């Protein structure tokens, strides 16, 4: 099993650098570009949520990320000391009227994508820290 751990300052402009590191890390075992893109997308969405909604954009806060990867599964754990996601948001759906273009969503798609791509998504509250764990089976 390979592990990638990092403490990232809670700033949107720092996601891209870590995202590229995550992509290279996944590439060592996963050789499916679409799958790597989807995993990277989930990482980005989770970090963006932590920064925008967890820490509400406040500076000087940090997010811990730990990724465990082997040929069978990837587990991404994201931990921060900000606000937890409200329960009503956890059932994220993508609702719009296909006949009316003005109803297409411009935001709120992050959780929907995470839940669609990952096999298991759990949120825990441990010692006042919000913990998100996302798992995906790579090979059965």
């Amino acid at each position, binding site marked *: 099993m390979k592990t990638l751990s990092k403490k990232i300052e809670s700033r*949107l402009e720092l996601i*891209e650098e870590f995202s590229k590191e995550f992509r290279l890390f996944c590439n060592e075992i996963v050789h499916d570009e*679409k799958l790597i893109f989807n995993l990277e997308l989930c990482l*980005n969405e989770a970090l*963006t949520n932590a920064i925008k909604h967890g820490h509400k954009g406040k500076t000087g806060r940090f997010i811990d990320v730990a990724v465990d990867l082997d040929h069978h599964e990837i587990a991404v754990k994201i931990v921060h000391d900000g606000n937890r996601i409200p329960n009503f948001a956890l059932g994220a759906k*993508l609702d719009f009227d296909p006949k009316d*273009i003005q109803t297409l969503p*411009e935001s709120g*798609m*992050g959780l929907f994508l995470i839940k669609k791509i990952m096999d298991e998504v759990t949120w825990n509250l441990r010692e006042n820290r919000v913990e998100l764990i996302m798992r995906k089976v790579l090979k059965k």
Partner: protein
Amino acid sequence: MKLEIIKDNEVTIVKPLFDSLNAAVSTEFRGKFIDLINEDNILFILDLSEVNFIDSAGLGSIIALLKLVKGNEGLIVVCGVKPTVVNLFKLTRMDQFFTIRQDKTESLAFLTAQSKK
């Protein structure tokens, strides 16, 4: 954040010159594009050939632009989309609302044909 903006007759071709259209840059990207819409441009090509990654905030900004352009009875064609990025459009079912073409030439041909109708 750099955008290449080229006018080809009535068509405005916008090409982001960065790797990721993500939450860090999506607001600025949207703002720059809205400036072009406010200059009375109605036919657009969004060339994503330099963009390797888009997150939901980036996609949201493109959706917002689609709504604005369509609201002005204009057209927007997206081209140069990497297969991985097309996958994001499909995951969110947004592929059915966007005209996606292979490259700039095909996009111009589509807009030319549409504007003659």
